[in-house]
């Protein structure tokens, strides 16, 4: 029998989540980094004094959310809880302890009541710049990727540790924005702490241990219930992606035993001499995210919901890279992990999984000289292909998954850079055929207003290995990178191209679900009428003749 009654627990639990949400909302609105602001590429959470996450903002991207959740223990390993003092603020961007990329800075603030640390607020935000080569996959080791901040005190009993501030400031290209965001992160935690203390007073709580135990226990039990519903067994799957010099096959086996679930990536590729290696916590972040999407989207994210799920990968491999491997572009591999989980669970949970989709955002970077002004320009944006289909629903066209980015309007692109977007349209027939069709990719055609050769670099996936379907569904169309003038471009290699080159990005579609021959005729007619599927594909793949 607990001392907090049921209703008070429910209220306190909802207050905790609300506090984290408030913190995230304030951070998101004030950030200087567009990916934080628009895509919510941040996370915010409340931890108990043992470092267990007990509530988290409903926002953000899986890479941040789940890696921060498991990261607090590292702060406590360096600074044991009772050595901390009021006014302390901690910082790190250690990729092996948090979000697997130096740009992702985590700030943690202990909260004190009556001189005792009773909780932590932490948040992780993507910094606009962190020095080094800049965000790229080109590094050979983490040393090239920017400034590395081990777990340190950023503020010591209210006194800013100037050396740390100065070091960061001196090592990044955009000090105003980066320091501004760090400031927002600190203030966000303070605001959260204030709210927590205020409602602890309201309810006469001296600490939150009992509340934390209750939250963790209940969430863990709910997660275990869901896993127990799965038939025991081994569920293997492998997913091949383009990779860099050679394709990468991500191999997983999910082991369900009673109320525990283990995802083992043994047999996946070894470490590569490029910045796309993934640290284990990031691998775990995207893997648990996939498990949660399929199994328990409604169970709140906290320590309890992670306990029954174990993620393993042999040390020194692509999915458990060893320091000092280069990891800056870890999302180029990590974003495919939820689809690996979906594929593995497809037999056991046919109605709860989504077929693999384009998964990896198409990242385009163009730099050159503006014909009209003679000034140098450089511009980057991200685009989405199609997502996979489900057992009762088509995939979404041109919609991000698993990352949560937002696209940029062509009119904005053309205002900010000397580019002309000649076309941005859905790509007919690119959705994987199936009883339910994969989402369509999109086509973008880009012209540069320049008289000089310009630099084109893209990070494009699924140009050779399309998104596979599930349960008889066909693969989506692979992506393609074309030009108007015979210039050949490789999907992951930067190139200086002639000024008059017009590039065409054909983005991949999502995988289909179920036998295309079983697609309902009405859905088929609509697809053809609206031009999502051609008359030819309808006849050849779906077996539906339409005049």
């Amino acid at each position: 029998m607990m001392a907090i009654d049921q209703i008070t627990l429910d209220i306190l639990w909802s207050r905790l989540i609300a506090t984290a949400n408030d913190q995230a909302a304030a951070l998101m609105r004030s950030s200087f980094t567009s990916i934080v602001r628009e895509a919510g590429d941040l996370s915010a959470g409340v931890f108990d004094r043992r470092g267990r996450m007990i509530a988290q903002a409903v926002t953000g991207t899986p890479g941040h959310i789940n890696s921060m959740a498991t990261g607090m223990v590292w702060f406590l390993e360096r600074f044991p809880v009772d050595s901390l003092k009021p006014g302390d603020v901690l910082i790190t961007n250690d990729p092996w302890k948090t979000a697997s990329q130096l740009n992702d800075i985590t700030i943690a603030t202990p909260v004190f009541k009556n001189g005792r640390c009773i909780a932590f607020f932490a948040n992780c935000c993507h910094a606009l710049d962190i020095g080094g080569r800049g965000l790229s996959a080109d590094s050979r080791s983490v040393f090239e990727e920017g400034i590395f901040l081990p777990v340190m005190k950023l503020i010591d009993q209210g006194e800013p540790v100037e050396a740390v501030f100065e070091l960061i400031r001196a090592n990044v290209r955009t000090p105003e924005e980066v320091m501004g965001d760090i400031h927002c992160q600190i203030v966000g935690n303070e605001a959260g702490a204030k709210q927590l203390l205020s409602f602890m007073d309201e309810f006469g709580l001296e600490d939150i241990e009992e509340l934390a135990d209750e939250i963790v226990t209940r969430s863990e039990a709910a997660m275990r219930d869901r896993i127990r519903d799965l038939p025991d067994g081994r569920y293997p799957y492998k997913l091949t992606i383009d990779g860099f010099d050679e394709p990468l096959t991500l191999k997983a086996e999910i082991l369900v035993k009673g109320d525990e679930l283990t995802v083992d990536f043994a047999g996946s590729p070894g470490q590569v001499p490029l910045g796309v290696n993934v640290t284990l916590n990031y691998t775990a972040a995207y893997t648990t995210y996939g498990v949660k999407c399929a199994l328990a989207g409604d169970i709140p994210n906290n320590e309890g919901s992670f306990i029954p799920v174990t993620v393993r990968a042999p040390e020194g491999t692509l999915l458990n890279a060893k320091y000092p491997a280069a990891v800056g572009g870890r999302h180029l591999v990590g974003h495919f992990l939820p689809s690996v989980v979906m594929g593995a669970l497809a037999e056991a949970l046919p109605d709860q999984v989504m077929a693999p989709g384009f998964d990896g955002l198409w990242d385009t970077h163009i730099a050159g000289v503006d014909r009209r002004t003679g000034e140098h320009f450089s511009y980057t944006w991200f685009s989405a292909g199609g997502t996979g289909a489900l057992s009762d629903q088509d995939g979404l066209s041109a919609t991000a998954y698993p990352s949560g980015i937002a696209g940029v309007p062509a009119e904005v692109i053309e205002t900010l850079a000397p580019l002309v977007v000649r076309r941005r349209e859905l790509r007919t027939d690119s959705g994987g055929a199936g009883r339910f069709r994969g989402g369509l990719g999109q086509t973008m055609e880009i012209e540069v207003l320049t008289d000089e050769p310009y630099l084109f670099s893209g990070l494009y996936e699924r140009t050779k290995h399309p998104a596979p379907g599930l349960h008889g569904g066909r693969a989506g169309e692979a992506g393609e990178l074309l030009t108007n003038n015979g210039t050949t471009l490789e999907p992951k290699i930067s190139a200086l191209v002639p000024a008059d080159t017009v590039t065409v990005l054909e983005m991949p579609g999502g995988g289909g679900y179920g036998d295309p021959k079983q697609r309902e005729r009405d859905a088929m007619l609509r697809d053809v009428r609206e031009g999502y599927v051609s008359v030819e594909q309808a006849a050849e793949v779906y077996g539906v003749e339409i005049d």
Partner: protein
Amino acid sequence: MSLRVGADIGGTFTDLVLVGEDGATFEIGKVLTSPRRPDDAVIEGLSKLVDGDDERRAAITNVVHGTTLFTNALIERKGAVTALITTKGFRDAVEIGREHRYDIYDLRMKRPEPLAPRRLRFELDERVLADGSVRKALDEGEVRALAQTLIEAGVEAVGVSLIHAYANDAHERRVAKILAEEAPDVALTLSSELVPEIGEYVRGSTVLANVYVKGIAEQYLSRLRERLKGELDLPASLFIMQSDGGLCEIEAAAQAPVRLVESGPAGGALAAAYYGDLLGHVDVLAFDMGGTTAKACVIADGNPLVANEFEVDRQYQFKKQSGLPVKVPVIEMIEIGTGGGSIARVDALKRLQVGPDSAGSDPGPASYALGGDQPTVTDADLLLGYLDPGFFLGGTMALDVKAAEDAIRTKVAEPLGLSVLEAAWGIHQLANESMASAARIHTIERGKNITAFPIFATGGAGPVHAFGVASILRSPRVIYPLGAGVMSSIGFLTAPMSIGFSRSLPGRLDKLDWDGVARIVGEMEASGREILGRTIDDADIGFNHFADMRYQKQGFEVRVPIAGGTFDAARHDDMLARFEETYRGIYGHVMEGTPVEAISWRVVAHGPKPTLALPKAARGESKDPATALKGRREIYLPAQKALAEVPIYDRYRLPASAVLNGPAIVEERESTVVVNGAGRIQVDENSNLIIDLLTGDEG
């Protein structure tokens, strides 16, 4: 002596108020909404208010009207067969959207279908660049041929949204001219007229939403005007409430019906601002709780906050970005799924959850005894003694206590091992918690400190829960206006005539094309003068100016109030200072040294604010509240965690200036004011109840 009428068509009722300029006349009418022909209810209600009195009929000068008709048509997809005309290569912009997931865990996340299906989205081989220069001229033959295609396809409405038309509208205008010749029966909206702002997705989506309901709006508004004259012989002018809190005449309304989508809630927000002002509060949190949802709106410095964008047809009513964006000025509000009909249940984690699913009004809460067996917030309120089973809706509907008890016992109390009373309190308080959280995050996102704001409580369930919500938010005061059920209509009568314009002209503040800014601001002012000049004197027309500004590379803008007058380089420092002031107000800091950009420019032309006189409560001999005492009953008092007997007052019999102390219940026909803790209750001269929360020594 002149009279004015406010008329709001809501989902269930059409509310009307008739007021005189001296405060002597103040009548309320409520008739059932007539969904098929919404004007029927307006005519019925009005003729009841006029009541065959010719003197009264002649005295009515204005009818101010708001309706959700167009919103409903958008949600139910009952608008015109609509096509889009855009630039070659961009017909899918309205479908590709933001490429964004608004829910990261929901694999079955849905996106709304564009209002023009893909087969009816047509492209013209023309192109304007970002600087407004023409890259490829319009081929008029192509437009004429397209007009025939539209007619053959049975298209009734066309939205034209060409790339960069906000920077150069020549092509759109030419298209309009040709379509008017070739397809004169097709309704038309141009993006460069309705929403000349950067961003092809949101602009296109707005244009489609507008033209989709334009036919319905034209028909409805002209029919209403004719019936007011023809059937009721009213000499009054008809004005329409816009979503941003300004009025317009019906010609303007029919051209831009998408500006009317939130007219009802806008009226409620205006009423909150009006009452707040009356009581000396420039900052107020308007809180409205009805059967299925609760809404909150921030009134700051006397005015409701206005946002530049809104969403219609959300796939999930309470999820941001799950709907179709429309870029129109709208009073900013947050809506959550907590209302009297919200269902309580126990989730997979054995937590008590309330809403967002709702029993609505059919079958409704278990206590309605209309077949509902799910426990709802209303059922909990009943068991806590907050509602009188014999005096619900003024006694017109009996509530079944046993049914409420059974539902709460079996669905909540037993599964959680609680008593029925504990479970009922949990439901009530969790509903309060979620409303308070939603209101708090809404104000944080806007940089306001909610603890300083008094709460203005309306809606059927608002007065039942407002005191609890205020306690959680630590608000100092709750205001319960008389006539909470017709607040939107009352708000309508406080609105000035207004019309808003916007134009994009992006640039860095230190390198701005000031001549260009001066030109577009001048054009917007001239348009405002022209439109408002039809109904008000030129001397009475005022202007508010805003610039949407941001730090360079930021992805969103803040709406900065700026001065009018001359626009030239000398304005730089002032504009910067005003931007910084606004920015600091929201985010708490500024970024010195970072270049600042202005993206869009806005002019709101407005007339004078009408005065509204409220009726004064009868001044009796006594200030003693005892005269209004109806009896006593047991209600749940959280501080004591038990039921205790408290006095029940009849609101209509409370004398002005009476002062009483909580805990207490004050009953009126449409709602019940619940004060379940310590509070000082005053009745003001307009019969409003004002409750000051007392902290510390809790009752």
